[in-house]
């Protein structure tokens, strides 16, 4: 039985899930803030791509670094964490059949987050924070830069506390029976990782703030990097956990999928919690002061157990879709289930493309670049952003876009205009991100540095530069950037139009992406008990097996090719 307050909840007309109206208000508020930060970050992205495209070279040096700082902070922190708080509020209430713990606490968190983010953006735009996202000392920014980040981090911690408290009251009031739903479990994993991450953030940002005020004399560069990356890389693992939770959620909503084996999925989330924070090492592999055993243990997340977790989710999500599709009768051959999937539903298209891009590009490159020795031929080159644009943009952001196509009609209760554009948007965005990411990765393999204004080194006392092939790939980066920006803009325009000017569909079910009968069939398949037929199909998922083995072979080829490339460079130890 739900513990909702009188008159402060409704039942979703589409999914039948309960919606706490207080949670709904803050889901909306955080989602709107998230999309605004996303817009700022996207405009910055376009300007950066057009500067890195060496034939265009749009911005002057100072504005390049300024806009790059803005881009990193708005995309990697403000957009994505704001959206994740919306997901936590949803998962904690609708999935656990509970009310939100506290409206007041939610207000405090929201105000701190928005004010903090605006402070940082303001300081960066007036040119007092040209320190890039990482703000490595001795580079120093205005004190309000650090304070803004602290505000945002504390706000996030408070929101996460509100989520934990919601989980607590749901459990206390027995609002659900048995174990919590898998998506809520994934959200809980993301929240736990967020706490660890944000504590690192506080540990490094508070002394930095005091240092910028002149109250602390010296910040050690190596210490800062070690602790900052306890914020910088694990915060991306909040995204991974949240993204995987969204994969499971959307797979259910768009195809009626349910996990084959709950134990496996939940264990994989536990692996994230236990091991993923070690990845602070990923950016410190060629640093002084840290020895090889520390680097090897930490960069591998303790023997790659967090990688194992992602490889598991990369199997279970498509496999669960395959089973649901086969139960619907799409049983012909190996891939009939996939070709008959709802590709015109932007929710489905987004998450499936997200899985593919995250696995094939983001995952494979990430593990390879994070190999202790291979990092020597990758550190601080464009290969690094080539990796994380595939994970955070092609993976997380695309999955969140897919979710938004359902959040707007189900939570905001508004209908979209120009639905045809929404149906093609995931494909435009995904192809842009793929080109961008490949352009970066290949340019980086020539040694082209990341965060660099002019790879022709115009005016340098000793000349340097790259051959035509590297410049070609910078062109691919630029074109990919334009395409991805176009996709992002379509998403933003459609969402803003729907949220502020869309026709209200309160009280009606939403079937804008798939016909009502298809949705009904999916939900019927979902709510069936796991009978013998289900288990029979679940034991043998040939399509998914083919997909994951193609992934494994690509992985091996890329991995060993990199060892070969490393073996060819100068000897060093």
């Amino acid at each position: 039985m739900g513990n909702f307050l009188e008159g402060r909840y409704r039942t979703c007309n589409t999914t039948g899930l309960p919606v706490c109206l207080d949670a709904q208000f803050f889901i909306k508020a955080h989602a709107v803030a998230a999309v605004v930060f996303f817009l700022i970050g996207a405009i910055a992205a376009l300007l950066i791509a057009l500067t890195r495209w060496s034939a265009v070279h749009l911005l002057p040096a100072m504005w390049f670094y300024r806009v790059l700082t803005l881009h990193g902070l708005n995309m990697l922190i403000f957009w994505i964490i704001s959206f994740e708080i919306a997901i936590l509020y949803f998962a904690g209430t609708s999935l656990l059949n509970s009310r939100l713990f506290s409206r007041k606490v939610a207000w405090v968190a929201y105000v701190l987050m928005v004010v903090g983010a605006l402070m940082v953006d303001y300081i960066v735009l007036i040119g007092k924070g040209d320190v890039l996202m990482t703000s490595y000392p001795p580079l120093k920014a205005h004190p309000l830069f650090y304070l803004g980040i602290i505000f945002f981090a504390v706000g996030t911690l408070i929101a996460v506390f509100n989520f934990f408290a919601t989980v607590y009251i749901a459990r206390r009031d027995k609002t659900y029976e048995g174990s919590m739903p898998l998506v809520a479990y994934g959200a809980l994993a993301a929240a736990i990782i967020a706490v660890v991450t944000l504590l690192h953030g506080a540990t490094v940002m508070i002394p930095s703030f005091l240092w910028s005020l002149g109250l602390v004399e010296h910040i050690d560069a190596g210490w800062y990097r070690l602790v900052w990356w306890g914020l910088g890389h694990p915060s991306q693992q909040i995204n991974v956990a949240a993204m995987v939770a969204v994969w499971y959620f959307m797979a259910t909503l768009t195809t009626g999928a349910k996990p084959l084996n709950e134990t496996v999925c939940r264990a994989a989330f536990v692996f994230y919690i236990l091991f993923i924070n070690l990845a602070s090492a990923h950016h410190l592999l060629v640093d002084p002061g840290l020895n090889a055993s520390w680097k090897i243990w930490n960069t591998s997340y303790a023997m790659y157990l967090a990688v194992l977790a992602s490889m598991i989710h990369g199997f279970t999500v498509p496999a669960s879709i395959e089973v649901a599709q086969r139960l619907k009768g799409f049983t012909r051959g190996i891939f009939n289930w996939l070709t008959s999937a709802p590709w015109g539903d932007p929710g489905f298209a987004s998450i499936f493309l997200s899985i593919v891009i995250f696995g094939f590009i983001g995952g494979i490159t990430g593990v390879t670049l994070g190999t202790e020795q291979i990092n020597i031929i990758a550190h601080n080159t464009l290969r690094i952003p080539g990796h994380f644009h595939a994970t955070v943009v092609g993976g997380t952001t695309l999955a969140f876009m897919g979710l938004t196509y359902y959040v707007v009609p189900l939570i905001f209760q508004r209908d979209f205009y120009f639905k045809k554009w929404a149906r093609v948007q995931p494909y435009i965005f995904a192809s842009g991100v793929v080109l961008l990411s490949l352009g970066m990765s290949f340019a980086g393999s020539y040694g082209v540095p990341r965060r660099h204004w002019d790879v022709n080194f115009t005016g340098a006392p000793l000349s340097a530069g790259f051959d035509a092939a590297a410049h070609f790939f910078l062109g691919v980066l630029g074109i990919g950037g334009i395409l991805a920006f176009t996709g992002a803009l379509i998403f933003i325009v459609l969402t803003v139009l729907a949220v502020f000017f869309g026709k209200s569909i309160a009280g009606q079910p939403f079937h804008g992406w798939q016909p009502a009968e298809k949705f009904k069939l999916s939900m019927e398949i979902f709510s069936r008990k796991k009978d013998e037929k289900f288990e029979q199909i679940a034991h043998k998922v040939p399509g998914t097996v083919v997909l994951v083995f193609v992934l494994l072979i690509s992985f091996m080829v890329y991995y060993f090719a990199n060892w070969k490339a490393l073996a060819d460079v100068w000897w060093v130890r």
Partner: protein
Amino acid sequence: MSIKSPESNWFKPPEGSERLWVGVALVWCMVMFLAMPYWHFKGKQNSTGESYAVTPAEFQKRVNRFVETNKVGEKNGIPVVEPSPGGDAYLMGQMWRWYPILKLKEGQTYRLHISSVDLQHGFSVLPININFQVLPGYDHVLTLTPTSKGIFQVICNEFCGIGHHLMTGQIIVE
């Protein structure tokens, strides 16, 4: 289940294809893990992180002494310095140059000390593409053996201010 509580008997081992994949993935993870200690002992390219504390002023002094004793020429007004094979070499990262130009011999091993006297820098040798982090306060020692001849460009790949793209250097290998 994804959006509903699972049936109460959900705790059970994986079966069928899922079990196969979990097993295969675990084996692959172990292979990747063991590759790193293997390469640490058998491979020729490693990042051991050997380093010593040094103040920027002290490091600058050592660099100047190194240049005075080993200077063999000049290029664009920048000293070209040839350390003795097997000996110590110094390279200073500074906004915005790598100082001095180093002249090394192919197949010889050097202890290359790199540090910064101001911000963080990134030591990147092109076109062979090897990269190491350079921090103020840390004397980062690379035991380096050039295995190819030529003139190599050193660039900075850690953001160090508005003139970041002007920061270049050179290593000549004969």
